[in-house]
């Protein structure tokens, strides 16, 4: 899922300081699950804004609403009334949702209330890890399900650097060395000889480095264009 973190409140406050009617819009998907931008957080943010602005002597009308999914136009219609009534929208969705809002309601400004951090998963309650960079050419078959591009701090393809010690990455004792994990798993699966393969330079053109990506599926298109 997409993991996000709420922007620091003073930043959110500042981004809407010139407006008097605000909508805080949550999203019912990933950011609800990672407890950053769901209905609960939208309500909290709305309340905090109204209190802060009242204190500052600049009272404001704040509403909150959550749509099922902010990254698809059809779901945004559910918030049309609230969006039209507001001068500005604070989106608590990921960056995709914020952009979908600005496209769909092009006359209205939607600003981000979250920092979209990564594609990852909850490891345990309150802890999420980054697992995928969306490189466009998955190598997880080669590395037995542990992504060296995402989980190695140097995105190495051919084994651990000289900074790996006691299973931890040189950048932090908090971060596991991805190559230690891959190594251990290769032993477990009796495939250690794979460490000897020299993987050639990656073709990054399938990733964001190849320019902005659009995915087209002719078999499911219905617009005929």
């Amino acid at each position, binding site marked *: 899922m997409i993991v996000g973190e709420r922007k620091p409140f003073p930043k959110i406050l500042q981004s809407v300081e010139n407006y008097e009617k605000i909508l805080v819009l949550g999203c019912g998907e990933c950011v609800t699950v990672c407890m950053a931008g769901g209905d609960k957080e939208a309500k909290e943010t709305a309340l905090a804004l109204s209190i802060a602005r009242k204190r500052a002597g600049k009272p404001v009308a704040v509403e909150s609403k959550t749509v099922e999914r902010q990254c698809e136009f059809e779901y945004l219609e559910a918030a049309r009334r609230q969006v039209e009534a507001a001068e500005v929208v604070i989106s608590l969705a990921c960056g995709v949702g914020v952009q979908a809002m600005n496209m769909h309601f092009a006359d209205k400004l939607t600003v981000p209330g979250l920092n979209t951090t990564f594609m990852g998963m909850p490891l345990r309650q309150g802890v999420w890890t980054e697992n995928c960079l969306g490189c466009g050419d998955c190598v997880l078959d080669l590395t037995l399900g542990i992504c060296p591009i995402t989980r190695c*701090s*140097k*995105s*190495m*393809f*051919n*084994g*651990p*650097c*000289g*900074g*790996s*010690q*006691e*299973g931890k990455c*040189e*950048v932090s004792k908090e971060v596991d*060395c991805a190559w*230690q994990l891959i*190594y251990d798993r290769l032993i477990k699966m009796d495939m250690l000889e794979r*460490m*000897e393969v*020299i*993987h*050639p*330079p*990656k073709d*990054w053109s399938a990733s964001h480095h190849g320019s902005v990506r659009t995915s087209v599926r002719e078999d499911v298109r219905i617009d005929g264009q």
Partner: protein
Amino acid sequence: MTASNLQKMLDRGNFAVSGELGPPKSADLSTLKHHAHDMRNHVDSYNITDNQTAIVRTSSIGVAATLIQMGLEPNVQMTVRDRNRICLQSDLLGAVSFGVRNFLCLQGDHAKFGNEPGSKNVNDVDSMQWLQAVKKMRDEGIFIGGDKLEHPLPPLFLGAVVNPFADPFEYRPYRLAKKIAAGAQFVQTQCIFDIDRFERWMTKVRELGLHKKVYILGGVTPIKSIGAARYMQSNVAGMIVPEALITRLKGAQDKKREGINIAVETIQRLRETEGVAGVHVMAIAWEEVVPEIVERAGLYPRPVLS
């Protein structure tokens, strides 16, 4: 075209000594030149670090030009941290164009450790891929993307680094084998303080016959103080500084002398270790002691090769 001095030294079976120069955080190379000059009769070649620990400094290739003007031989370190494959390959050609023949292909410390922690870590290719790419440029005349070089490259001497002190320990000899397969002709090791662990690593290296396929230069760093030892022990990635070594320094009246003594003894042990072809002396910020260390280790005068 002739081989580099470092390569000749090793090919002829001489125990090699490479030195190291750390470029400054300015474009004023006067101190660096001074150090280079003072070591010129004691080392066969000079590693020039490439923005070491991710701190912005004069480029290793820029400094190499200065060394060549001085009649000295650079060993250009190239990390993959800061440059994509276009820039790496182009910089390599530029360096070869004015006479650089030794290259050391490295990954590089993470930018987080340096003075530009907000920078992008490029890592377009990794150190293994870069090593193999340079080999292919030299041997097959092709770039990474498959395009051909317009003229062949002269003989280049390709190096890599290996760290017997990193984990997984059992993998480390095989990592050396992989670097050899990728094109390494010589390797320099991380600083050796835990000589027992180094020897355990060497035993496996010999068992695999790797010492016959690559020149192994043991990394030696003189320790200046207990503070420096402690710093390396806890803050430098992939280093092991045994407690016994710190105890020995503590017991010594003159810590600096003792640091030099330890370095000399380490070199002497390396000379006796089968499969070690030379030493790489890293005395950054303490360059003036290099001649004394080399002399006391019995490696002076350096053979003069034709």
